[in-house]
């Protein structure tokens, strides 16, 4: 970490220019000791009542979702609303929704880490947790959406005596590799970042069980210079790999659509489209998680600062504008292509009974992010929270629009048939939301939600040339 601190000179060398000064990452001049206490108290304190209520609700939804999945597996995919021509609907919609949402987390923690963006440090841990849990939710669908779940191993290149070997030209197979590698790498990255913090919890542990558990997961961390040297090397490497995955995973997922012949899917803009949509929805998800977290644990208000949230809002604005660009260019291209099927797909998308999905999607995604041009909006956190939720609703509708409205209006109008979701579709989807929040609540209770070790390194006092001269060490 010490190598990083020298880069903070820009802040420290211009103390007299208030306008150019970068806002501090920790407010109220907190010292490292305070930071440790503030973060660890969340894990070490009593479990608050709201946590139990939230956990009960989300675990119930997760349980119902699990029951729906079991019912689907023993009965048949027909319990969903999928039909011909809409062979995929909520299953792939939710898969894309979750896997895309994950991306903002990786981007904030890995890409911004590599580019030395210090403002991301205190929100990185939550973002990574969001990433890992969202991939888990996404991973539910490809595994169960198939007709014969018990043969899901056919998707993996497992040597066997059946002569089964996957077809490497199928984008679904690419998905399998993309999602599994993404889950592996982002989990490792998340866990690796936690090791020093877990050792802090171990050292502060008051019970034997806690000491043992945190001791187990902190992998014998002592904080020696040698350990730090190896650790940072590994962390940079993992960040590098994760940064690549930020770009590749969602573009591979987009090729499910882009490599097909379906009008409305078959477009070269799809990788970019999915990528920007992914970061957009992920930024919104991070805001949705951080704002209530600050409210629940007021001590975090000094660590997760309005200026950091403001930057996430700006990221959301940028990506939201890219998404808006894609919407426009997609419609333009459909018209400009002169292809009756492409034109038809977009024409039908906004007509008929299925028109409300794209209209919901467009009206949210074109308007809501643009509100973030205003600083007042960015700094009114209750409003940001509401808008962020709206953005994710809009993005869910976008995924749904892409998947279903293209399928239900394909080449031969004779095969057109509307899609209607079944109750099992809905409960499975809310079940994944339940899984997500169950995991997130567990995360809050058992893991430090902020990367203390990294954050302490950017405290004003931790920099030798800072006017305060390392006071507080």
């Amino acid at each position, binding site marked *: 970490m010490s190598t990083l601190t020298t880069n903070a000179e820009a802040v420290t060398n211009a103390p007299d220019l208030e306008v150019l000064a970068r806002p501090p990452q920790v407010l109220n001049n907190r010292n490292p000791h305070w930071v440790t206490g503030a973060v660890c108290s969340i894990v070490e304190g009593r479990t608050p009542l709201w946590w139990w209520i939230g956990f009960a609700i989300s675990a119930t939804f997760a349980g119902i979702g699990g029951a729906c999945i079991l*019912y689907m597996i*023993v*009965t*048949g*995919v*027909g*319990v969903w*609303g*999928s*039909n*011909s*021509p*809409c*062979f*995929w609907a909520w299953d792939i919609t939710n898969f894309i929704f979750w896997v895309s949402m994950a991306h903002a987390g990786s981007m904030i923690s890995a890409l911004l880490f590599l580019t030395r963006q210090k403002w991301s440090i205190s929100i990185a841990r939550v973002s990574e947790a969001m990433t890992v849990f969202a991939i888990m939710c996404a991973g539910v669908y490809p595994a169960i*959406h*198939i*007709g*014969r779940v018990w*043969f*899901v191993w*056919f*998707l993996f290149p497992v040597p066997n005596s059946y002569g*089964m*070997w*996957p*077809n490497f*030209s*199928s*984008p*679904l*197979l690419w998905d*399998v590799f993309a999602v599994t590698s993404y889950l592996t790498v982002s989990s490792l990255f998340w866990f690796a970042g936690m090791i020093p913090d877990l050792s802090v919890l171990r050292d502060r542990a008051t019970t034997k069980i806690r000491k043992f558990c945190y001791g187990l997961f902190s992998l014998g961390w002592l904080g020696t210079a040698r350990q730090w040297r190896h650790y940072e090397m590994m962390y940079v490497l993992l960040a590098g790999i994760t940064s690549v995955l930020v770009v590749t995973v969602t573009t591979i997922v987009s090729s*499910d659509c882009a*490599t*097909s*012949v*379906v009008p409305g899917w078959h477009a070269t803009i799809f990788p970019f489209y999915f990528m920007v949509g992914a970061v957009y929805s992920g930024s919104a998800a991070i805001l949705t998680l951080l704002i209530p977290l600050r409210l629940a644990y007021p001590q975090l208000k000094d660590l997760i600062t309005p200026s950091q949230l403001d930057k996430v809002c700006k990221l959301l604005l940028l990506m939201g504008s890219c998404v808006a660009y894609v919407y426009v260019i997609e419609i333009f291209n459909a018209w400009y292509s002169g*292809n*009756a*099927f492409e034109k*038809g797909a977009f024409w039908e998308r906004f007509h008929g009974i299925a028109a409300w999905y794209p209209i919901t999607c467009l009206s949210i995604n074109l308007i809501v992010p643009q509100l973030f041009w205003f600083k007042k909006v960015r700094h009114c956190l209750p409003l940001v929270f509401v808008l962020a939720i709206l953005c994710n609703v809009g993005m869910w509708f976008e995924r749904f629009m892409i998947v279903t409205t293209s*399928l239900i209006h*394909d*080449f*031969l*109008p*004779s*095969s*057109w*048939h509307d899609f*209607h979701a079944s109750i099992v579709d809905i409960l499975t989807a809310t079940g994944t939301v339940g899984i997500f929040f169950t995991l997130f609540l567990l995360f809050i209770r058992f893991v430090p939600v902020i990367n203390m070790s990294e954050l302490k390194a950017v405290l004003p006092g931790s920099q030798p040339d800072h006017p305060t001269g390392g006071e507080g060490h």
Partner: protein
Amino acid sequence: MKKIFQHPPRDTNPTLWRTQGEKEHTPEFAEGLAREFTAEATAQDQESGMSRRNFVRLMGAATALTGLGLTGCRRPEAHLVPFAKSAEWTIPGKFLYYASSMPTPLGAVPLTITTSDGRPTKIEGNPLHPINAGLSNGSTDVFAQASILDLYDPARSKAISYDSATVARADLDTFLAKVRATAAGNQGEGLAIMTGSESSPTVDRLHSELLTQFPKMLWVEDEAISSSEADAAFDAVFGAGYRPFHDYEKADVILALDSDFLNPSASGLGSARGFAKRRDPNQAMNRLYVVENHFSLTGGMADHRIRVRASEIGEFTAALAKVIAKKTGDSDLSALVAPLRGNGGKFDLAWIAGVAEDLIAAKGKGIIVAGTQQPVQVQGLVLGINKALDNLGSTISVVQTLAKSPTAKDTFLTLAEKIKAGEVKTLLILGGNPIYTVPVRFNFSNLLARVPETLHLSLFADETSKVTHWHVPAAHYLESWGDARSVDGTICSVQPMILPLWNGISQVEILAALAGEKVDGPSAIRTSFNGYSKDGSDAAWQGFLRNGFADGTAWPLSKPSFNQSAAIALVQVHSPSPGDFELVFLRSSSVDDGRYAGNSWLQETPDFVTKLTWDNAALFSPSDAAKLGIKDGDMVKLSSGNRSVEIAALVAQGHADGSISAALGYGRRGVSHVMENVGFDVYPLRYNAFYCFHTGVKVEKLAKPPYVFAATQEHQNMEGRNIAREGTLDRFRKEPEFASRMDGESPPPVSIYPNPPLTSDLQWGISMDLNTCIGCNACLVACQAENNIPVVGKDQVRRGRDMAWIRIDRWFASADHSQENLAMIPMAIMCQQCENAPCEAVCPANATVHSEDGLNLMAYNRCIGTRYCANNCPWKVRRFNYFDYNDRPLDELYYGPLAPKGMADSLKMVKNPNVTVRMRGVMEKCTFCIQRIEEAKIARSVKAGASDVTKTPMPAFKTACQQACPSQSIVFGNINDPASAVSKLKADPRTYTSLSYLNTRPRVTYLARIRNPNPAMPGADMVGAANRSPEHA
């Protein structure tokens, strides 16, 4: 191995003893020592049948089995029982084919029946039969294809009953003997027999036999959809028993007046073939005018079509006749039309003038044909016009059919009167379902209650069986001996393919018992055969059975005589005026008059035009619907007098205003599971069973929630996409390749995926002729029967999950958006077997791959059901098993494992043993009948032996759809062989590929439809213009 314990030797006088017996050493004690338990305990063991040892032994075995044998993980054991003695001629696994025929009121359908291990599994047309002359495939209609399912229907009646109590066969025999004895005593007074109008020489022979013995007996023929009006007209004009025979192959101009003559299941086989032969644009093409109230198949084929209410067809015909009479100056026709006055109907006079001119120009080479359910007035006028245009004797001949019926038969009206007068004591209803079909005004169930002895012979214990005293399960035609006349009079054999599954009895057996004739197998049929055949030898009889028909028994064609005064008398009978609305009763394309309502294949076959499954509907014209505020699915009440029917409405394109059409045969209750909650019964509104329409019907829109139909096609408009392509004859002559040029400029056909090598000498392809495809659905059901395609039920069809491998898309097109110039094009779509298949690239499990002979294969075992292939199929021909459709009751699909598993044993018997029955979670689709391809390839290899197999010709075989097609519009074959029919058709300039810009290179190509408009007709420039304005077609 019971061990006997050897006691130590004992003292004779012991000092210690436990019982007196031991002390004295009595024999009882000695015996007791050797026993393990007392005699009482042993006796108790034996009484309960379970000894302690046995109990322990069983428990041990059970523990061992559950613990060690892991029986819980094994499938239940099943035993294969081989033939102890194989039947002669059979090779296990090979099909046997028999000729037979299916008797229908329209004439027998000659058949070749495939049997597998003694059970019939598939029905094909008999190509040897004269009505299939020139058709290499034979042909069948949709009902014949589906009839095999009726044979195995588990809902069929299985026992003879008297007043709902099951009785023995002997009781029935006693009853029939009693009836015979009574009839012999009083010359048959009080005995009435009611049958359908299937024409069978043996039934006719027994009928005359009975009449000789019991001259006062009443014999009634009744059909729900009868041709009495037409028959009455023909009897009057041509002479008793003479029926017209239309030779459509000879006709240059055809005018169909409310006649669906092209529909094989409404008018018998043969017409479509003759008509199709004249649709080749490279030869002299015919021209078809159609006047009708709703779109029929024939209307869809029309070059010019006009919408006229069914009840105004008479007036329309009169107007046409007047024009023709005036233009030709024909005095007979003038005399015929002179007394006719208009009824206020307004018709497009230019249209009438145009048709009249064209018909006059084609004098002697035209046909005017009226629907058989139009009143005698229409029939008389049509005959008069045909006579005036010299069509009688050239394109229309007559046949003398009296040979088929020994005496005039009474109609239902006579029966009703006699029952009312109390003159009927015994009524035998042999077939039919009069309680359901007879007009409500007769109150037939009350009439039946007045008859002391009633008997009903039918496949199902149906509405009529419930009110008759006797119910006798009928034998299906596939399990009984019989004979029947096909539409041309040729006598066909009906042979049993299997013993009656549930002890059914045939009509012939009952009639023979009444006539005192002993029936032993085919004896009654043989007796008839010896009667009509010149050669009664065993060899001739064997030939009759082998070929399925008796050669030379067709009715000879003769030139008709024309009775002018009778014709004048006919036209005096005015058809009723239409009133507000007329209701037209249609023959259902799925259930006929209701007789096939229990057949789930047919229920799930979409209607030709509306594409509804499992339902009928009241069809309204778009402008009437707009006026009445009716949308699809709205419930309406149709009423006439004091009778009314509630039915869901459907807006029907091309429907006449002021007219409502509804198919008969739906809304049956309480007979079989399949018939429940299916459609609406419109029989209660029928007044005159001989007309197809009823006038003065009132419509009331009901404030009920809309009814949800299960339609297989919801969007009727091609949206400017050139999917089905058509043009006019003129355009074709100027630009023969107009259809393929509609693709316009395409990007160069480059594929980035390597294509699988097509190395075989056999490369399969299909050419589908849109010009001759009438959209009759025969291919659909043929495919379903051949490929074990499951039925999914109404609820699943509503959800868009029907499983048909081949479907018929029906497009409506109107270049000017008007109903007047609306055209219909059916287009059969099956897997296109793309050489560069989009489905193959995306399957992660390699479950769909390409064969070296160009087939897009589906490996069910590898399929895990990602459904990506189906998403990526531009034609959406892939079907997914969302549930275990084969293994769960269709109304309990959602119960999953809680629903009972397994299908009825009898339904298993209908499955094609060469085709896998698919489980849930796998994708399926058309395979070009790969089982037939492989069978032929194996036969070729066997034939080739050591010689070069590629030089050995393939044995002739056809796909199921091709074999069923009555107009031969599907041609399958080897496209590598330039001499094959399919290669020749693919070289036709009309050939085009649908969605060719995708560069998937389909193996299925289409021949564009060519219409032959008459330039003098109004709207002639709108004919053949389905693809005219791409933005608005």
